[in-house]
């Protein structure tokens, strides 16, 4: 930033006021539509959610259009601290975060496997990419049937092997893992496609040089290929973390948070509390949203910081 303003100052001295205005105003003019949208649709809702989390409000305005909530300070957050359902959701979010990272090695493996020139490879690539193209709702339905007691393929398989069928979605201890497995299916495809494009950009001369130096197998992958895939890995980590934290559709489609709330995640619990049939507790839902936002901020600011640092190094 300091460099930028230095050049601006130099430019002013050289080309006079008109020129200075143009160079200063133009970027802002170009950014204005985006900034406007960002403020109205992102910043403003964030501010509103945070302020709403200090209220007890059932989402209704009275006949005269007046807000009917009451200010209760940090009460919603104190309640979150003692809420077993919130605790379960938080842990489940953590499970999602950790296990979703499996998409990276598996996606990389598939990408390397598919990065070859054989007849019909395009078809195989599209087939592997297919789960990412279909809607999450469809993925959820497919897996719900796959796990379904009495007729699901997975149930019949476990029944055949162990003699007693396992209904994953009815088991409070397994249900979250079952849903994560469903979520990993399209996520792996996504990561795979990121790595496939990354592999296209791996410099062949470096591979050649490494090969001459006798590198192969794991060493080749670890010391030569992976460092070149760093930009792809970075993006893959970001989309996976965000995908894990906003896991809502699969939970909603496959279990509605059940059995007895054991597969809830924060985003689903927020929906249940604020917008679901049972909830109408806007303030409490907003408090959950703020917690989720704070967790996301930890990762997002980490990414932004890294991106900024990389830019500066250039």
């Amino acid at each position, binding site marked *: 930033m300091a460099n930028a303003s230095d050049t601006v100052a130099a430019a002013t001295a050289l080309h006079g006021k008109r020129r200075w205005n143009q160079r200063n105003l133009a970027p802002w003019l170009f950014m204005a539509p985006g900034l406007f949208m960002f403020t109205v649709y992102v910043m403003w809702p964030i501010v509103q959610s945070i302020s709403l989390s200090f209220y007890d409000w*059932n*989402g*209704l*305005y*009275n*006949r005269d*259009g007046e807000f*009917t909530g009451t200010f209760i300070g940090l009460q919603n957050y104190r*309640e979150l601290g*003692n809420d*077993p*359902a919130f605790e379960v959701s938080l842990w489940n979010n953590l499970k999602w975060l950790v296990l979703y990272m499996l998409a990276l090695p598996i996606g990389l493996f598939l990408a390397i496997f598919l990065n070859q020139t054989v007849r019909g490879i395009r078809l195989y690539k599209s087939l592997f990419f297919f789960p990412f193209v279909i809607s999450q709702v469809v993925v959820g339905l497919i897996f719900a049937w796959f*796990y*379904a*007691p*009495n007729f699901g393929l997975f149930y019949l398989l476990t029944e055949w092997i162990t003699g007693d*069928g396992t*209904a*994953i*979605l*009815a088991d*409070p201890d397994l249900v979250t893992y079952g849903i994560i497995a469903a979520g990993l299916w399209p996520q792996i495809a996504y990561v795979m496609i990121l790595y496939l494009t990354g592999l296209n950009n791996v410099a062949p001369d470096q591979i050649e040089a490494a090969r001459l130096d006798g590198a192969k197998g794991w060493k080749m992958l670890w010391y030569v290929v992976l460092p070149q895939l760093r930009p792809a890995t970075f993006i893959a980590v970001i989309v996976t973390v965000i995908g894990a934290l906003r896991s809502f559709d699969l939970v909603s489609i496959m*279990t*509605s948070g*059940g*059995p*007895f*709330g054991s597969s809830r995640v924060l985003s689903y619990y927020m929906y*249940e509390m604020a*917008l679901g*049939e*049972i*909830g*109408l*507790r806007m303030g409490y839902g907003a408090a959950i949203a703020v917690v989720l936002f704070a967790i996301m901020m930890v990762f997002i600011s980490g990414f932004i910081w890294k991106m900024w640092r990389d830019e500066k190094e250039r």
Partner: protein
Amino acid sequence: MVHKKAGALAVLAALLMSGSAYAQQRVVTWNADYDPIPLAATEALIADFEAANPEIDVQLTNFDHEGYKNAIRNFLTADPPDLANWYAANRMRPFVEAGLFADISDVWANNGLNEALASSVLSSTIDGKQYAIPYTYYQWGIYYNRDAYAAAGVEPPAADATVDWATFLANCEKFKAAGIDCVTTGSVAKWPVAGIFDYLSLRTNGYQFHADLAAGKISWTSPEARAVFAEFAKLQPFVTENHAAIDWQDAAAIFTQGKAAHYVMGNFAVGVFKEGGMTNDNLGFMVFPEITPGVARAEEAPTDTVHLTSGAKNPEDAKLLLAYIASAEAQSKWNAAVGQLPTNAGSTVDAADPFLSEGFAALSTATGGIAQFWDRDADAEYASIGMDGFQQFLVQPEELEAILERLEQARLRLFPQ
């Protein structure tokens, strides 16, 4: 060009004329969330009403059932219709307390509804004023599969004779031995287990206890509440395994295939059972067995209602329509078309439908009282926490203490003593 212009003029004129035609009529707007069959019945009801009142034009706006739950909160403030569909008891409380539903005690008083709709007075009343016109309800109870009885060699319940709880449980043993689930349910949506719990609670301790429990007045760790769970524990081993991952419609398939003998359900499920191939010959209905001898029999019958909004533009004509909806004649016709029970005591029920007539008999002899259903009697959040607990108990009965403690904490938080 000339032709086109003339055509446009004609369209414009037609629009203007139809506009003025509307302006002469008094309009009543009504927002609802009907499925196709009830929608057709309601359109017929409106046609009858308009025939009797030609100067009034009723405009029904039908919403998708799920979308309606969110839409109603917006349209009641932003653009209120004259009438809106909703539910009785605690479900209408937030709208009444926010002043969005209007007091219609005068409609009740002027049309003698306190007598005609006697069984629904309590559920339509908040703080001594009526805010709802109930027009239909349906009974809950136990539906049984005679084929499953035959397969397990169990004597089916005789008509008009009530089964007691001990016999019911003894029969369950026999069904289990025959590899048939005694009671099936699908609890993905959680409310089906609330139906079972409600009946256990109503039969163990009676209506007043159950109403107090739903209102948060009774501790979950009290001996009475524990007694309900003790009966629940007796039933638990006989309920379909993995019900927590089964939709209630899928459980209906288990039931119609004869893999389960009983289903605790509402009468709306009869249509699903019959689509699954059951007929009046092998599908039976009985009231839930008596558990504690001497407790007055109470039943569950959720009521659907229509409400006048506070922002109504034409409340006078809307009240006329409400009175018509409450009438015996309109309710007989509407409910006959939909296959549910009218709330007006003067209306008639299709005698050819055994489930409707048995349900009507069961409800009209329920001396204990009529409950609305757990998620309408209890506060929404409390109801949800409760249903989580019931479902968990049915999956993990050994967790009873933890469940009761969690429910009790929720009670103390939501209803500060």
